């Protein structure tokens, strides 16, 4: 398979099966997205270095939309990414109390595929709540312990909760006999994680 000949839609489909393809999208579109955002931040307090972080967040937004299963690409991938970049920059502007650079907007070449964006696209990262809360940090430490201890629990839980793999897919991935066994295994892993978190909070 020659990856360079794949359509945007085909790439999106591949990301569902193998997240490595997200890395390919990241590399392919990075330059244009950074250029696009650079023009938006003229005269703002947003630093050039922050654009890389914004772009990485945009990749996470794309990935999480794809694995959630309700992502429909209605424009080119570059246009979608530009639009999400724009929305992320807008949020940053709001945070620093600045207005968008409308002059920059006017100078965008709407005929150039690399400069197009859709203002209706306002996708954002799901908020994780208060990650400084004691229970959250305890669970975080417990998860790290689970990861370090080896075994399948960490992978099983992350594939289910973040990468949204179904029980059938997990059964296939881990070689369990049936989805019911996988479900039991997942329940055991969650119990183990809870115990670890409890220990974390009480030490």
């Amino acid at each position, binding site marked *: 398979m020659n*990856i360079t000949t794949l359509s945007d839609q085909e790439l999106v489909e591949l990301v569902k099966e193998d997240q*490595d393809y997200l890395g390919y999208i*990241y590399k392919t579109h990075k330059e244009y997205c950074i250029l696009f955002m650079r023009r938006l931040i003229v005269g703002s307090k947003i630093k050039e270095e922050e654009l890389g972080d914004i772009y990485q967040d945009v*990749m996470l937004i794309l990935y999480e939309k794809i694995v959630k299963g309700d992502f429909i690409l209605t424009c080119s991938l570059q246009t979608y990414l530009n639009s999400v970049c724009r929305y992320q920059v807008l949020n940053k502007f709001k945070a620093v109390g600045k207005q968008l650079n409308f002059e920059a907007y006017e100078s965008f070449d709407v005929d150039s595929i690399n400069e197009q964006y859709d203002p209706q696209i306002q996708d954002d990262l799901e908020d994780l709540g208060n990650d400084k809360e004691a229970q959250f940090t305890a669970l*975080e430490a417990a*998860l790290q312990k689970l990861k370090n*201890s*080896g075994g399948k629990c960490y992978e099983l839980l992350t594939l289910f909760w973040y*990468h949204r793999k179904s029980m059938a897919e997990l059964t296939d991935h881990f070689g369990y006999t049936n989805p019911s066994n996988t479900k039991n295994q997942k329940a055991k892993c*969650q119990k183990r994680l809870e115990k670890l978190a409890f220990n974390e909070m009480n030490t």
Partner: protein
Amino acid sequence: MTSIILHIKNRLEPVFQEQGLLISDKSIEWEAIYKGFLMYISDPKPLYQELYRMKLKNPEHVISQLDNLYDAFMTDLAEDFVLGKNNKSIIGLLGKEDSILDNKIIALQQLKAVITKTERQRIIQDLDEMGQRAAFVIAESTLETALKKKARTDLKEQFSAWDAELKEVKVEEPMHELESKIYQKKMLGSSKTLELDTEENSRNSRVISLSWIKYAVAASVLIMAGIFYFKSFDRTDNIDHVLANVETTTQTVSIIENQGMGYISNEKDQQVELIFNDYTKRIVSIKDILNEDTYENDSFYKNELDSLKLLENTYVFDENQLTLNLENTNQKFHFIHFNDAGFYLKIDDSFYHVINTNSPVKLVVENDDTIVEQLEKIIFEND
């Protein structure tokens, strides 16, 4: 609603099976059971009535399990909710006083948030490498060459093994006489191995393996592989150089783990298979070949020697199987699941921390005295 009924079916399947009822049975009113479950906490009667109506063998036994089943069902609903698979029935159950569902949702939302945070960090760190992996393509010609080389090496190893087998059988008679006797014996009775009936052999009976058949098969394979093989392979095989095989042995040990009341060796279901690959003899045989002037700079043997040296004292672990690349000297092994710290392997008097890995990792002795002391204590108590 369909997905909710599916949850109920999955939870009730083993329970109904105990009652001799299959979930595909058309007499089961899933809609009624579903409604009964939804109001189980406030009013369990409709669910009881439905279970009695089904004329189960032992409805009381099913009813005694309803609390656990309800809890599991609420977990399923909470998972659906947290994953965004919302449903009117779930919404209806939310916000009630002492709602089990509410509590489960809060806990799972936090779990998901923690996992999301960790995985986001991991993906961001990995994005560059992911891109390289996705775009990495091996040229078909390179793949073909690599496979061909591996196939040749395997075949040569097989030859060496057969050579070794043949050397064990010191047949003093000419081959055609031996074959004739084997043929006669075969005519009298079928057997995979045949004993010679000569006077000498009756005193010192031997089992003669039919290894020569393997040669015939191998020869056929070689002919099919074609002249290319021999032409491209400018070094003729020297049958005097017999490489020793890798000695592979296995043994199963029980995992000593904390079962809540201390560490015990659970022989029933927690076991790990130890696979030993002892490369010692093979390394010695390669070194012997390389010591000869003709093969001193032979890259073929040198490369294998380098690879084997890298493998020395390494392991690969996938939870059920631990492959150890080390000299097997009948050491004594213990395998411990040590709470949060993961797995430890004890070889004779030393402990080694073992992590899950697909590629070989060096065995490193655990030097933390506190950990070693605890591990020794666990083994002592378990013995």
